């Protein structure tokens, strides 16, 4: 990558997307931004526990990729996945309530920030082990092929996951079995605090796919239209050729790895360069320049999103705590015992 942060090659170039879709993608990108900002505030207030990984700065990659798919195409993601759920149309109230650990949360308070899922919307979840969800998406792709359906599975993973062996295994089997899978690497350039060039001998991560004859390319992950085009093309290829594709989107997260990371090791000038290419600001200019929205429209979108997030946060705060009786709910689809102490036992065995 060039030092100014530009990707320099292989972007999708000018895209003439549907104006309604462009407007919708901007709306969701902004929703993700303000959701994350509010989540950070609520974390500082102590309303959100555990780890909180924010996607601020990555909105173009998140939204562009999800919108490049059909709504029925299954997705898996990482622990930085609030934006994927929101992009799929999950209720911001339920997402925020899950972060608050309330019973109205998307996963009933069992998952938290790192483990959102919205099965109805084919969002198959956020996973906390780096690389761990990659084969799951290949399995979703396997099931699509097994049933002769024409959906495409997309797995979102970070640059750090490319050094996990399970990616290599997954790429190999996806190609070997001609599975409709889009491997979407959101390269935010740091695996926690370790820069890509300190972790990867080959920093053009999309080239990992070359070893398997899987077509792959790199796109500017700060450009939602480029990401949208690339994923649309990849999904089309996967759907029609029944073959995997890999996309690497170069983006940048504005915050540390998680809320507990003070972000002291990344160079300040690097952060400033990337912030100067803010995906929302850039996209606003495009939308205004092409006359797709007016300044008033943008103001209205922002206001509506802020109201949505305010409502979501209030909803989450007002939602009841998870009942302690739910402690042992859903350990099994077919449980034999709901006693969390000694739950391996059949009822009646405790004497």
């Amino acid at each position: 990558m060039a030092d100014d942060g530009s990707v320099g090659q292989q972007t999708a170039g000018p895209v003439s997307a549907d104006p309604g879709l462009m407007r919708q993608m901007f709306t969701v990108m902004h929703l993700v931004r303000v959701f994350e900002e509010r989540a950070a505030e609520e974390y500082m207030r102590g309303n959100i526990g555990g780890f909180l990984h924010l996607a601020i700065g990555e909105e173009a990659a998140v939204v562009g990729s999800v919108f490049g798919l059909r709504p029925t195409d299954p997705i898996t993601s990482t622990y930085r996945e609030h934006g994927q759920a929101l992009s799929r149309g999950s209720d911001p109230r339920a997402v925020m309530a899950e972060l608050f650990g309330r019973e109205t949360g998307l996963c009933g308070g069992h998952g938290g920030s790192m483990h959102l899922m919205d099965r109805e919307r084919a969002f198959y979840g956020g996973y906390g082990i780096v690389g761990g969800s990659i084969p799951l998406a290949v399995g979703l792709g396997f099931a699509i092929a097994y049933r002769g359906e024409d959906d495409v599975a997309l797995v979102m993973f970070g640059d750090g996951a490319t050094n996990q062996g399970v990616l290599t295994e997954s790429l190999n089997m996806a190609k070997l079995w001609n599975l409709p899978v889009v491997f979407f690497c959101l390269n935010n350039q740091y695996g926690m605090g370790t820069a890509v060039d300190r972790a990867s001998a080959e920093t053009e991560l999309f080239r990992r796919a070359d070893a398997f004859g899987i077509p792959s390319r790199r796109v500017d992950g700060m450009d939602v239209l480029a990401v949208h085009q690339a994923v649309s093309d990849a999904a089309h290829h996967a759907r029609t050729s029944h073959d995997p594709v890999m996309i690497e989107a170069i983006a940048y997260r504005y915050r540390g790895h998680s809320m507990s990371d003070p972000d002291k090791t990344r160079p300040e000038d690097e952060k400033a360069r990337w912030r100067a290419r803010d995906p929302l600001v850039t996209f606003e200019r495009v939308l205004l320049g092409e006359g797709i929205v007016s300044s008033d429209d943008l103001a209205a979108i922002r206001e509506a999103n802020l109201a949505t997030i305010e409502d979501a946060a209030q909803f989450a705060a007002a939602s009841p705590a998870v009942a302690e009786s739910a402690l042992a709910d859903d350990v099994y689809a077919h449980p034999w015992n709901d006693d969390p102490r000694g739950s391996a036992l059949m009822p009646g065995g405790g004497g």
Partner: protein
Amino acid sequence: MSSDAPATASYREALTQAMREELARDDNVFLMGEDIGLFEGSFKVTRGLLKEFGPRRVVDTPISEAGFVGIGIGAAMSGLRPIIELMTVNFSIVAMDQIVNNAAKIHYMFGGQTAVPIVIRMPGGAGHQLAAQHSHSLEAWFTHIPGLKVACPSTPYDAKALLKTAIRDDDPVVFLESEGLYAKKGPVGGPDDLLPFGQAAVRRQGADCTIVAVSRMVWIALAAAEQLAADGIDCEVIDPRTTRPLDLETIAGSVRRTNHCVAVDEGWPECGLAANIATHVYESCFDWLDAPVERVTAADVPMPYARNLEQAALPSADAVATAVRATLARGA
């Protein structure tokens, strides 16, 4: 097909029958694993299934245990019913992240939105001079994990009936077979004979001491019981069949009558299956026990290669008989 199934079969053939019947019964069932198709399985448990069901249903994989177990989990999340064969339990260690972090957690951590109806089959155990890396008995590891169900059949009948239950179950089942039992013959049930999980079998009735064992150790326990019977010691042998769920009711009911218990485990002693059984017995039968529970386990060492050392490391009928005599002596 299934109606022709013989009433007697080997443990291996019983497993094959279970898979054949369930493959025929439900198109969502498929097999995946290393060398299970063309090669018909490292232990020939999948013999004939590729020929009968074709490569869509019987999928040969590369040597990528974490990858294909994960693929099975993903397929199960979308409603298929994969039966994943790991060539041996030893290779499950490579796939442990997928089994523990994904298969066992997905239903719970996502609030019950997605079940994971997968069966992960694998043979384990020692006794063939395969040394340290190929001789594991990891029942305790899997039993430790909430979200998994763990079956460890000891007979051909149970192998077939429990595997059919596992395949139809909506939860992830780790199905632990025993390499040492594959050739063992015995009666098997028909296509509709299933066994519920969490129902122990009383393999031998007796009044003096309860021996609890699973899988191949059941046969060791029975051999010990025969030895002891010659001396007038009458042992009851309980086979829990599944270690999660565990039928403590049957175990405790037996111990409350015999007042003595020996737990046998092919795995290691620390935090092992026998340790777990002993704890449950203490918790539920303390007032009935006449002596501490005795454990007979593998030696607390990596498995050695040399035949005599390997035999010394494994639970034997003699060791079980000695343990029974010891607990009876302390309680006398």
